[in-house]
């Protein structure tokens, strides 16, 4: 098991970091433009936050209502306590469909439970259909960004991947690559047996599952196969359609700077008998995976997240050390809170330290989730195990000095005297100071 520090040392020198920075810069400027064009944005953020809090305050009630609503329109709901249960439920649902491909539309929840590997091990052919997700599936790499999985891949790398895996001549022209993917995936869409999507929002009052996409793959995935499986984090509910409107007003603006994404797809049950197309069955898998254990705790508000990715784009740490440094399916500031909260301190207890606490994430969050507060809270929980021992020792000595004014003043005087001698700059220090002088000098002689 590697640490964030070790991974970040690789991340900061990864040549792809420049592409990640260009990508996040574009998302940021698009978001800024969309927000400045929308006078009601601040009010909508307040309303969106209030809606998310209302849901979390009575989550089991809304889950029950949602379940009843889905069943009323002919769908079925399954509850999965953890990843293993979710994988088991889904593999049973698809067990008799070996042979026809399983197509997927981008879903963080299925990344979280490691669904693809599981299904592939059972002999299924699983195909990601979001272009970015398709690219990283070919590359056999985890997504680098919540909404743009292949954000740091260049067109040349993508061209090479396509030519290696799809048997097409190499090209690095984006429109040609796009066309290759369209043709390749189109054929699979039309013969797929199962479509698995994530869920951006579940509407408790109507039982609707809502997916928000730009490419249309989400619509195809939930239309052509006879079975549609929607995998939803248990917290992704909104009470009713009016609340959904508020969430839609903030989601795309925060994510990509669009006023609405191209396809806001509201799916309510399988196709009715008199409808000409759509799936024959809709199975909704509600994933808990420790989410409900956060209710009523200091970390509850992280469940308000709608996965727009704005905090990643704003975060200086994410932008400079990259998404893979987090070692989790959820990178960035949201991942630094969510990963230890959902997947445990043992593996992810150092992620809360991967932040300068600059507050840029809170500034852009459509739900105004106070990530800096929770990063501090998590540090308090993991300091004993995950703070660098030399740093912890240094802080304790410092505190001992700081609570003894006479000693402190002596120290200040000593420092002042020492600074009349010695070099103008200190370029190498031992112990915890090594981290400083490994990358910077320290001004010394006055």
């Amino acid at each position, binding site marked *: 098991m590697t640490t964030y520090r070790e991974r970040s040392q690789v991340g900061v020198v990864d040549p792809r970091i420049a592409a990640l920075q260009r990508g996040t810069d574009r998302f940021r400027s698009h978001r800024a433009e969309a927000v400045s064009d929308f006078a009601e944005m601040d009010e909508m953020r307040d309303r969106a936050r209030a809606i998310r809090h209302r849901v979390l305050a009575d989550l089991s009630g809304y889950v029950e209502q949602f379940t009843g609503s889905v069943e009323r329109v002919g769908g079925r709901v399954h509850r999965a306590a953890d990843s293993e249960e979710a994988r088991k439920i889904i593999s049973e649902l698809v067990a008799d469909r070996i042979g026809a491909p399983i197509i997927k539309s981008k879903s963080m929840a299925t990344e979280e439970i490691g669904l693809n590997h599981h299904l592939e091990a059972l002999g299924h052919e699983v195909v990601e259909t979001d272009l970015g997700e398709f690219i990283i599936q070919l590359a056999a790499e985890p997504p680098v960004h919540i909404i743009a999985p292949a954000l740091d891949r260049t067109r040349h790398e993508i061209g090479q991947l396509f030519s290696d895996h799809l048997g097409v001549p190499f090209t690095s022209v*984006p429109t040609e690559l796009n066309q290759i993917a*369209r043709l390749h995936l189109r054929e699979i869409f039309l013969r797929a047996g199962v479509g698995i999507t994530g869920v951006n929002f579940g509407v408790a009052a*109507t039982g609707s599952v809502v997916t928000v996409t730009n*490419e249309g793959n989400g619509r195809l995935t939930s239309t052509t196969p006879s079975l549609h499986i929607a995998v939803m984090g248990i917290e992704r509910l909104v009470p009713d*359609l009016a609340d959904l409107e508020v969430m839609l007003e903030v989601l795309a603006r925060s994510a990509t700077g669009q006023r609405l994404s191209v396809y806001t797809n509201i799916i309510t049950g399988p196709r009715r008998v008199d409808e000409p*197309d759509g799936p024959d069955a809709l199975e909704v898998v509600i994933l808990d995976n420790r989410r409900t254990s956060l209710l009523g705790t200091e970390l509850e508000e992280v469940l308000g997240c709608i996965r727009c990715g704005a905090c990643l784009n704003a975060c200086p740490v994410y932008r400079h050390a990259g998404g893979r440094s987090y070692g989790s399916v959820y990178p960035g500031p949201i991942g630094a809170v969510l990963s230890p909260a959902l997947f445990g301190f043992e593996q992810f207890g150092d992620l809360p330290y991967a932040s300068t606490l600059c507050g840029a994430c809170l500034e852009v969050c459509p739900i105004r989730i106070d990530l800096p507060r929770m990063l501090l809270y998590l540090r308090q929980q993991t300091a004993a195990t995950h703070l660098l021992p030399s740093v912890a020792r240094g802080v304790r000595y410092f505190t001992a000095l700081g609570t003894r004014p006479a000693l402190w003043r002596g120290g200040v005087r000593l420092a002042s005297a020492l600074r009349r001698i010695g070099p103008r700059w200190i370029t190498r220090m031992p112990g915890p100071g090594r981290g400083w002088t490994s990358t910077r000098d320290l001004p010394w002689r006055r």
Partner: protein
Amino acid sequence: MDFDQGSALATMSVIGEFVERLAAVDGFAHGPMPSPNAMATAIDLSGDPGVYLGWDDVGVSRMHQSLQAVGWRRLEHSISTENRLTEQQRMSEVTLGITGADGGIARSGSIALRSGPGRPRMASLIAGTHIAFLSVNRVFPTLVDLSLPSLDPASVSNVVLITGPSRTGDIEQQLNLGVHGPKQLHVILISD
């Protein structure tokens, strides 16, 4: 200015915003125009005849006859559990989708489509070109004004808000239209 003139002007500005916003998301708006012109416009836009998929009722009478008169063949699309795969294979020949629309949102340039009898979802999804007819009376300033509850999503399996043609930025954030859905989206506004 009396009330009617005022509301007519307000409607015009909403339509103007819709047209502008649809263009901003790389869609094309046409009109507003009366139904007969709308039909002619659709024929002009349809290009080389081939196979198309459409709603039974697109909001313009005799649309299907007119398309067929210039050589288009309509794909009768209705899947069942047994014929799904063979039925869907036929989709690869479809080059045009033609539908009505249940509402429009000026601020985002979006159109709302409900599924239902005679309304295949694939008509707005599978072809390279999607032409939708939208009555100016159904264009609202914002999503909230259009109101999702008014579309009654619970009574059908699918309501979709479409905001421009299918797009992706997944390759170096270069805009690419028509990655999985239509590359061209035409909305013909009907004034009567």
